[in-house]
């Protein structure tokens, strides 16, 4: 009941309600969960690199609502995180940047049913002074324009391939980076003239790069699923963190960062 309420309540009440439900649900079913009923404990969250800013903020909110609780994050490419989970990393919550990476975890029965909590679209990121004068996707095919893409194995790379295919363009990048933040860094440092990254990463760069939207981005929208792990050491706390992400408050944080509601 409380959780359902909190999903629709706004801002501060949501925190309070979550706090209460933390107390109320007292005895978590997982035997490894901390004994303290006040929600003391640790939640380990594996999240896609593109969630670094928003989840860090939500983690602080969660800690404030559950005194004594710490939220530990491991941000990286979703594919790497999925592999680490498959290798038995002790994780409570997994938030991936694509259903495909989440599927590798759920297929192995390592996590419960995932819920989609956000969507993200691609943008062309260019350095502030835009040295190669890029203004649409077709400009990236120019051999003189240095382009960085994510590797196809990671979600932002898969999305980039999809968008370029949809546009019928063939781009030869100079590098295929391991995750979206690494790709963005290459633009921030001015080492490449353009890159395909998420809209949220452009916003997170706080003006260090310029984002250019393009119509084919609609063909490559990434859904972000989140799930608690079957063997979550934190038990109920893990569920509560997922509830926070799915709540209106969580959505507000994500929207502010440029994510779209699912």
């Amino acid at each position, binding site marked *: 009941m409380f959780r359902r309420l909190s999903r629709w309540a706004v801002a501060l009440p949501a925190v309070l309600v979550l706090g209460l439900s933390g107390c109320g649900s007292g005895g978590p079913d997982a035997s490894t969960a901390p004994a303290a009923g006040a929600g003391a404990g640790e939640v380990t969250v594996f999240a896609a690199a593109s969630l670094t800013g928003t989840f860090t903020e939500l983690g602080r909110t969660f800690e404030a609502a559950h005194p004594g609780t710490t939220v530990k994050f491991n941000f990286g*490419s979703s*594919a790497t995180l999925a592999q680490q989970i498959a290798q038995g990393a002790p994780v409570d919550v997994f938030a991936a940047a694509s259903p495909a990476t989440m599927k590798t975890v759920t297929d192995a029965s390592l996590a419960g049913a995932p819920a989609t909590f956000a969507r993200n679209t691609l943008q062309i990121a260019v350095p502030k002074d835009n040295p190669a004068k890029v203004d649409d996707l077709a400009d990236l095919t120019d051999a003189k324009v240095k382009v960085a893409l994510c590797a196809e194995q*990671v979600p932002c790379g898969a999305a980039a391939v999809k968008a370029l295919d949809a546009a019928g363009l063939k781009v030869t990048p100079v*590098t295929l980076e391991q995750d979206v933040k690494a790709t963005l860094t290459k633009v921030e*440092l001015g080492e*490449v003239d353009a890159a395909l990254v998420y809209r949220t990463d452009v916003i997170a760069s706080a003006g260090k790069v310029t984002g250019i939207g393009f119509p084919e981005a609609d063909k490559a929208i990434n859904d972000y699923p989140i799930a608690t792990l079957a063997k979550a050491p934190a038990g109920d706390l893990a569920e509560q963190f997922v509830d926070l992400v799915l709540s209106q408050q969580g959505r507000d944080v994500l929207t502010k960062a440029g994510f779209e509601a699912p």
Partner: protein
Amino acid sequence: MATTEHIRPVKPRRGFTGRPSPSPGRLSGRLPWMLLLPALLGLAFLVLPLAGLLIRAPWPTLPQRLAEPHVLEALRLSLVCATVATAACLLLGVPLAWLLARVEFPGRRLVRALVTVPLVLPPVVGGVALLLVLGRRGLIGQWLEATFGVTLPFTTAGVIVAEAFVAMPFLVISVEGALRGADRRFEEAAATLGASRWTVFRRVTLPMIAPGVVAGAVLCWARALGEFGATITFAGNFPGTTRTMPLAVYLALETEPEAAIVLSVVLLAVSVVILASLRDRWVSAS
């Protein structure tokens, strides 16, 4: 010239220093377990992870995985880059080691500390530092592009630069150690007989420290071959130009751990074979 010719073949260290030169067979008696036990533990610690790789390797599909062009491409790139990087390290590192060991100058201790910085620096940080200096907007990189139209990031040359940066300290340290261990009286003798400092270095010093140089070069090559962090940060990751074996392993780990294991086994096998054959030919023979 003729005089230095006489000195070269002499096997120096032993006779002249007067230090005892124990051969392995001299000490006998039971092996002390205080040494043996930790030694065996240490060995197990180093060897077990390798055994893990070998046990988990998908042997039946190994040949066909190996024949895939991208594997050979990455392997070739790794070997070429590590070898060129080692050559570059030899050209720059041996003189640097000589400078540190043979020339008194103010701030020498500081310089020596600076030389070892890449050893303690996380390689990714080294990669970022290289970008800031040699990148397209870097201090020197900017000038390189404006003057010669050369940019290093995302090129094979960039891989070599990154590997040389990380691996050179290994060479410098081991050559400097060899120089300090070498008996300077041979050099002094050559100098009193009229040899210039360059001739002394070339005809006396270098032959004396050859084993140290080879050992350093081998270490340097091995470090360059395994280089990952600085390479992916500075040179990027693109098949055929900058994707070396360690990068290919990392990428394969994202989706196909089995392929990553295969690549690791290949890298392991190639490096062990090369290091072992070098060791037999050079290091122990000297």
